């Protein structure tokens, strides 16, 4: 394979591997945990490097991932003292571990082949050069194998524990009532996040880990209510951002991780604006619709009340209704025009009369 293709493949695999646990972080309102974990594991990674000068062995990946779990339990321990709130607890813990990591790197720069920038920014462009060799056979980039393994593990775990995760995400109370230990699910998920973060860290840097874990699921959250769909949409958005981000970086000759994050932001922004039901445009349109629909209902109820009554000619005259409804004249004119357009009313010698669907509208407004 060409390095170009390999980079895209690695990026896509990382994106999906991150998006899957990310969905549960977003649903469980723990998105910032990914930020904390992805920073804090620097400590574990540096220690691993100091011990064996590489992160090659899976044992060390797991070891580094333990730092993530350590972060989670430190946050929890701090929060349980009730001396600080949960958000503050997160904000207190990860800077400490990250700081120790950074200081270790600068002090032992000779022993740690870990560039401080690469830690944050990642250098995906170099990932294809670190190959996995077996008996002198080139099996492909090591990052692809590591992340592929993590992706597989994530998929297996989510499939196996789908029901438990779903329940715990939407109804924690019910989940624990049914005997699923919330603590077990919490730590299981956090271990998954940590492991994924450690694996991805090497290739894409800690900030992109956050972008990939939070961005696609948050976007998907605006598109669907179903967990299974949210998972697949997140994965798809992750892959699209990864590939398009790669090409953006290629054309402009800029940092790949940064450009993938930028694409994630761009895609989110589009969905934020134009999501069918939950986007901003839809929201504004719905607000507008509700306003008019409400006014038309009021008009319909008014017309129904006086339907066939002696005062109908006065109460329901097109130029008079605004007085009886206590509306501004212009507003009333617009409402009448809309109601005519929508077929709720028709004009009978300047008297407004309800149509069949108009009567239905009035009926619904009274009951609903």
């Amino acid at each position, binding site marked *: 394979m060409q390095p170009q293709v390999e980079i895209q493949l690695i990026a896509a695999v990382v994106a999906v591997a991150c998006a899957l646990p990310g969905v549960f972080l977003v649903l469980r309102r723990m998105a910032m945990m990914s930020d904390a974990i992805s920073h804090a594991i620097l400590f574990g990674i540096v220690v691993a490097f100091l011990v064996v000068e590489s992160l090659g062995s899976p044992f060390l990946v797991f070891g580094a991932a333990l730092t993530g779990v350590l972060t989670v339990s430190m946050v929890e321990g701090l929060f349980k003292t009730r001396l600080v709130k949960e958000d503050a607890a997160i904000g207190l813990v990860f800077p400490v571990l990250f700081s120790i990591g950074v200081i270790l790197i600068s002090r032992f720069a000779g022993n740690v082949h870990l560039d401080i920038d690469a830690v944050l920014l990642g250098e995906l462009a170099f990932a294809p050069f670190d190959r996995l060799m077996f008996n002198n056979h080139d099996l492909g980039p090591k990052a692809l194998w590591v992340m592929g393994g993590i992706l597989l593990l994530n998929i297996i775990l989510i499939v196996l524990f789908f029901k438990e995760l779903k329940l715990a995400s939407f109804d924690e109370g019910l989940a624990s009532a049914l005997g699923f230990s919330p603590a077990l699910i919490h730590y299981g998920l956090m271990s998954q996040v940590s492991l994924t973060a450690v694996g991805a860290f090497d290739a894409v840097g800690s900030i992109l880990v956050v972008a990939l874990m939070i961005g696609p699921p948050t976007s998907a959250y605006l598109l669907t209510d179903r967990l299974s769909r949210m998972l697949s949409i997140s994965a798809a958005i992750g892959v699209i951002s990864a590939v398009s981000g790669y090409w953006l970086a290629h054309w402009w000759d800029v940092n790949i991780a940064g450009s993938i994050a930028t694409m994630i932001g761009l895609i989110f922004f589009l969905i934020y604006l134009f999501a069918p039901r939950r986007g901003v445009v839809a929201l504004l349109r719905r607000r507008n619709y509700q*306003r008019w629909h409400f006014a038309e209902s009021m008009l319909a109820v008014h017309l129904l009340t006086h339907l066939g009554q002696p005062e109908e000619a006065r109460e329901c005259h097109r130029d008079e209704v605004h007085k009886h409804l206590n509306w501004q004249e212009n507003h009333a004119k617009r409402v009448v025009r809309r109601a005519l357009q929508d077929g709720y009313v028709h004009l009978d010698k300047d008297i407004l009369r309800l149509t069949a669907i108009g009567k239905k509208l009035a009926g619904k407004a009274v*009951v609903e």
Partner: protein
Amino acid sequence: MNGLNEKHKPPRDQAAIWVEDLTVAYQDKPVLWDVDLAIPKGVLMAIVGPNGAGKTTMIKAMLGLVDPVAGRVEVFGKPFREQRRLLGYVPQRTSVDWDFPTNVLDVVMMGRYGTLGWFRRPGKAEREKAMHALEKVAMDPYADRQISQLSGGQQQRVFLARALAQEAEVYLMDEPFQGVDATTERAIVDLLRELRKQGRTVVVVHHDLQTVPDYFDWVFLLNVRRIACGPVETFFTEENLRLAYGGRVAILGERKPIADDAKSL
């Protein structure tokens, strides 16, 4: 339906609060739908309805804390924005963080901030008014107490004192009886009666149906729409309660109950 309960609607300029066509939606579904309400001056009114009926939203809309999709709120005949000084607010006790680093007197003095306006610091006058308000709820011995050390009932009384410090004409209270001890409940009821004696208008979201006739003289039954409103003895009926609490029947499209309601007037 504007015609419903028309008899008990005070004229618009005499109502303490006048609500017309109020419709509020948070996301897509309306939480309040076309609510009309006129609260006569000087009544002690309970807002009653099941969970999620929109009681809190109703209070917030009257205070301008949520933007309605449609409708209007007037206070003593003027848009509420011009009349904010006349409204006192007692939010749900759980709506704030009681671990906030401040003491009882300080919280109560917040009731004077509106009158003080921007930039001015509370001084001796404000302190005195706050102490006076605390005395009314028998919390003056706790003036210097850190708020995290208060019991639920004491917290509620601090909130009441803060509203009293506002020296408002109309008080809007969201579930002041929720989770308080018997002493506090007594104290609140006494306070409500005293406010009524002074000619103030008090609107209370209330959960305990049994005490409604005891504590209140006016009732507003709400479940997304207005179910009924008027004097307790006339409108706090089983029929209306069934409409409000078993309201699902009506929502499913059975129209008859509403018509009955209209007829019974």
